[in-house]
């Protein structure tokens, strides 16, 4: 009985965003039961994007490293699967018989999947090593990563021998690892596979941010210099989280490619890199929930409005992007912590106020008891 109460209390003590997580999870679980196949397909893409947003939140929200080129890692993962798929299934445009030595793992399906996780991690490890061991921080990190994604997009278009340039690569969709047509799942089942990956990524992120590592990362965000006086090496922690974040972004890239069935150069470009920043910024950074909610709400809104307005205007996206621009301005003006961030803030303030009242009350009773004793 007491144990039960304990669990209930612990459940009550959870911050408000964990309830939101639960709502999101329930929503995603029941979603396919009530909608068309098309929406199930769209939604699996959005879930892949949510994993991507989570990886950025680890880096930006928790560690304060605002990467403006996170799509490079997302795209690196996606392209590994893309190139492997094209090579194994001998797509029409492929005119190479052998892969270069560093892409050799792509000749097997599992190798490609592992490569898609390892390569982004390696990229971020290398770039991170250079940037963090020197004293590159703050806005310079953002600008270098921005330049990185600009250059990466050019690079992918340029290497058309392997990436098929602007046209991109078609990939066998709705499988995670296999490249054979027989292994394809239906939209419905694959949706739940992707969702399972989201839950896995979420749990990993949650474990990281609640561990001591996560606390140190937050301390890096708050005051990096102070942390060195406690004997920490902030650069090592930044490198670690950048690598982990890169790996998760790579996973997101793989899943996205597998839901959409193709990948092109925009997956590594500045547009996606800044779009994911917008999702996280609007949802609220530094609490995992905001990243997921932001992505979910904005992407559903875009798709839905697109289908509504497609009859009126042929090119709805241009207006939607403008709306996004105004939305960012609105958010940074009114609630700079983002939607979920603000909700958490309100709850925390409320809790603090209640606790303060309690302390005051206790001190007052103690004082009265003391004076009561004196009189007696």
């Amino acid at each position, binding site marked *: 009985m007491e144990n039960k109460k304990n669990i209930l209390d612990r459940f009550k003590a959870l911050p408000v965003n964990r309830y939101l997580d639960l709502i999101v999870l329930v929503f995603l679980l029941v979603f396919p039961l009530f909608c068309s196949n098309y929406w199930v397909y769209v939604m699996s893409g959005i879930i892949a994007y949510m994993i991507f947003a989570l990886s950025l939140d680890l880096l930006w929200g928790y560690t304060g490293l*605002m990467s*403006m080129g996170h799509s490079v890692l997302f795209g690196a993962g996606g392209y590994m699967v893309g190139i492997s798929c094209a090579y194994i299934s001998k797509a029409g445009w492929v005119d190479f018989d052998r892969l270069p030595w560093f892409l050799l793992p792509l000749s097997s399906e599992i190798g490609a999947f592992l490569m898609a996780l390892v390569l982004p991690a390696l990229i971020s490890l290398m*770039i991170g090593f*250079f*940037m963090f*061991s*020197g*004293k*590159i*921080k*703050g*806005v*310079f990190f*953002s*600008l*270098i990563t*921005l*330049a*990185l994604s*600009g*250059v990466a997009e*050019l*690079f992918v*278009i*340029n290497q058309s021998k392997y990436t098929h340039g602007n046209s991109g690569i078609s990939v066998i969709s709705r499988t995670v690892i296999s490249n054979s047509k027989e292994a394809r799942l239906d939209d419905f089942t694959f949706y739940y596979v992707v969702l399972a990956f989201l839950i896995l990524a979420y749990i990993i992120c949650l474990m990281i941010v609640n561990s001591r590592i996560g606390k140190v990362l937050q301390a890096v965000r708050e005051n990096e210099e102070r942390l060195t006086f406690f004997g920490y090496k902030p650069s090592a922690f930044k490198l670690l989280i950048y690598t982990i974040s890169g790996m998760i972004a790579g996973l997101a890239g793989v899943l996205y490619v597998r839901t959409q069935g193709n990948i092109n150069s925009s997956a590594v470009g*500045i547009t996606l890199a*800044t779009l994911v*920043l*917008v999702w996280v*910024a609007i949802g609220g950074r530094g609490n995992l929930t905001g990243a997921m909610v932001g992505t979910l709400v904005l992407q559903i809104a875009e798709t839905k409005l697109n289908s509504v307005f497609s009859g009126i205007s042929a090119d709805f996206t*241009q*207006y939607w*992007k*403008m709306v*996004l*621009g*105004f*939305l*960012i*301005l609105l*958010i*940074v*003006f009114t609630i*700079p912590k983002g939607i979920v961030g603000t909700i958490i803030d309100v709850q925390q303030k409320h809790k603090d106020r209640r606790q303060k009242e309690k302390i005051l009350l206790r001190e007052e009773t103690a004082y009265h008891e003391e004076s009561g004793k004196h009189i007696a």
Partner: protein
Amino acid sequence: MNASLIGQLLVSGMCSAFILLLTSLGLVIIMGYMKIVNLAHTEMLMSGAFICYYLYAVLHIPFVITLILAYLICFFFGMLLERVIIRHFYGKMSETLLATYGISIILKQLALIVFGKSYKQVEYPVSTVFHMGSIYIESYKLILCAISMIALAATLILINKTTMGLKIRSTTQNRTMTECLGIDTRKVDSITFSHGMGLAGLAGAAIAPLTAITYSLGESWLTNTFMNVVMGGVSSLFGTVASSFIIQEAISLISGYSNSVTAQIVVLIIVIAIVRFKPEGLFTPKGRR
């Protein structure tokens, strides 16, 4: 590997360096003196190019006056933006990045909606080609070098020789103290930001004849201008001059022998390597912060 080819590459690299200097000047000033990263900078280049198209190619206003008008229009637009938006976010890095990014998408999408995806073209104001031995160069590029130098000189004079410049520098050094001296730092901020935006407009108008004018013009300048700022640092305009030259000469030489994408990659690596050892930029004032 012949000398004349290398000479040709070096000279065209030099012209590109001046052009890069011109296009990054506004960005550097806003970042150096106000600690604000203006992500809308490259969209201002795009706006400047469109202004040039309408004034010069459509209304046939003389080119020099077009440039001045482009500066003024963007100057006042900058003033408006500063008053309405930027002013509220001083000292908040993520917020300014997001806000200026918001402005940049709005500008870009506005251009897309108004002008569509078609390309506009502006004729060279001067169409002759300049010869020097086996090296040739379009005269207009030489004019651009001159414009770039004039803009740099004017900015240096504004910052170092005028009272306004003194106020700008003192606001950067110590805002509270400057306010205590009775200087309206908000006005100083407003002027600094507007000047930076004006320079972006001027640069956009000046490069308009070189490129196809379209809504996505800004994107193509994004990487180079921001790499330039990162490498040059913001504490000295000479850092920007030097890094413009390093970046563009490297791009010019490498793309001469290989291709432009390899050049971009190599330059990015050079930038990261240099910034690794000089995180504050190429020329940093020594001493206690």
